[in-house]
């Protein structure tokens, strides 16, 4: 995954686009094993959302200060927590989802045109071709959020964008309607090819902007259902110099976010480098980043 002619990689573009979804008063939920999301939130905090708050599932904590993204020392964010949660609060009780601007990114293994998602299994549940890790809290929370839920995947292809998901573990717009839980439903999907959202009335998935250098035919071929394609085409606004510099030098200099994009040997090699780099740190607390 080299820098392309535009001077940025796809993980950088995605992290920047995800960062731009954050509002200044958001509570940003940082889940388990999602360094791309953590990078994006930290970048947002350093650019346009200085008041946003990190809610780390890993520590059941609320943290105000941004820290450099870390693989081994993620949990050290517990150190600066200004709020802990009770045990029960680690599920639905964190903060009132219907009134506050909580933002959480979910990464579906399958998604359909109405934003229903699947993180449970490929094939029949009773005898799955592939068992996936599970949906964690997606089935519980995603339908409650007043700002809706946000989706991403670095692998936009027909295995993921399917006419019908094999198991609904996250409710999108069922038959074009909102869930009974009161949230706004899926808002956008950021992929390696495009920025997609949902058409206001039909609630079908719609192309919002194609990433630079991506052909629209490539997008159509990679999607297992018909997208709403507006007449007026938009190109995704690429990362700015400032965004790229922050991401590379302060937010995630070890490129931990890239682990979500790479596979196989490449991923293993990057993991080796990251682990060695982090083990060589004398101070095993990720750097605080001053805005």
């Amino acid at each position, binding site marked *: 995954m080299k820098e392309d002619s535009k001077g940025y990689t796809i993980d950088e573009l995605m992290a920047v686009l995800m960062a731009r979804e954050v509002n200044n008063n958001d509570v940003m939920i940082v889940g*388990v*094993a999602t*360094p791309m999301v953590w990078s994006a939130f930290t970048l947002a905090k350093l650019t346009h959302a200085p008041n946003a708050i990190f809610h780390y*599932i*890993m*520590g*059941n*904590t609320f943290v105000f200060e941004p820290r450099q993204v870390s*693989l*081994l*020392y993620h*949990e*050290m964010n*517990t*150190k600066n927590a200004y709020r*802990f*949660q*009770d*045990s*029960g609060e*680690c*599920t*639905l009780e964190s903060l009132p989802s219907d009134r506050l601007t909580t933002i959480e990114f979910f990464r579906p293994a399958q998604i359909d045109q109405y934003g229903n998602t699947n993180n*449970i*299994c490929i094939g029949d*549940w*009773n*005898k*799955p*071709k*592939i*068992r996936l*890790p*599970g*949906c*964690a*809290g*997606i*089935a*519980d*929370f995603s*339908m*409650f959020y007043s700002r809706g839920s946000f989706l991403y995947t670095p692998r936009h292809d027909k295995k993921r964008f399917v006419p019908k998901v094999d*198991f*609904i*573990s*996250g*409710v999108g717009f*069922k038959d074009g309607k909102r*869930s*009974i*839980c009161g949230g706004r439903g899926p808002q956008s999907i950021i992929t390696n090819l495009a920025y997609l959202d949902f058409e206001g009335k039909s609630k079908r998935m719609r192309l919002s902007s194609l990433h630079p250098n991506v052909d629209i035919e490539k997008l159509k071929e990679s999607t297992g259902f018909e997208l709403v394609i507006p007449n007026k085409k938009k190109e995704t606004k690429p990362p700015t110099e400032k965004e790229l510099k922050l991401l590379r030098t302060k937010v995630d200099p070890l490129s*931990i976010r890239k*682990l*979500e994009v790479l596979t196989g040997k490449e991923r*293993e090699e990057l*993991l080796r480098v990251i*682990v060695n780099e982090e*083990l060589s740190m004398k101070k*095993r607390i990720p750097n605080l980043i001053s805005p």
Partner: protein
Amino acid sequence: MLQSKLLSLEEAISTYIDDGDLVGIGGLSFWRKPIAACREIVRQGKKKLSICTFVGGIEIDMLIAAGCVSEVRSSFVGMEVFGMASNYRKAIQQGTIKVSEESEASIALGLKASYLKVPFMPLKGIIGTDFNKVRKDIKQFDDPLGSGTQLMALPKIDLDVAILHVPYADEYGNGNITGAVWLDSDMAKTAKKTIIICEKIVELEDMIHLPGKAQLPMQTTKALVKVPFGAHPSSVYPLYTFDALHIQNYMKMDFQDYKKDFINLNNHAQYLDNAGGSQMILNILL
């Protein structure tokens, strides 16, 4: 004075875990997992365990590979950015273990129901998903108060055993967790038999001064076991982080080899030595 509940790991597991038990495992993902206890379960060849954990990782995968498990109840079982839990995946794909499909709330509220002695807890979430197609024990129902709201009834989870790994405990079975408690306290309070594994034993009086105090109450603890680095290769904040190298190693090795090198050993020091000894310890220490 109060009765000490200090046991050896071997005694605790053999005394309080029976084949077929529904076993709750504390922690989350690679964090505060009672893995030394899981290795002991493997050594003792426990069978047909139902394992319930909030978010599972290597400990679930290992127990499945060793043939100790008949059913898993967890909202997520994976190896974080390292990849998939391949024994978990294989066992389900081959149909050798059962799955009770869970979300985070179905476990959290299931434990809450157990505590309140009610058969279920109501939730609006989950409605619209396919959970009800594969969980015959959950049910959509009308609000009995007549608001017309549709709700999902999630059944109580009555654990036979809870195994929880904490940094500090006293010998009477009070446990203290620095940082996130997740569902450990709910498991400690609801399980019929609670086993606490700790890194360090402190005095009851010290609980007064530890942040968060005794989140795990002694009244429900059956056994306390001290195993320093006993959560390895997972983490115990604020003492040590997880061992990424060991986890990668685990994922590459055939489980029978792993078992020989890391489980079927005479003592914990030998395990730590085989896992890298002093250099490994220096690596993980925070």
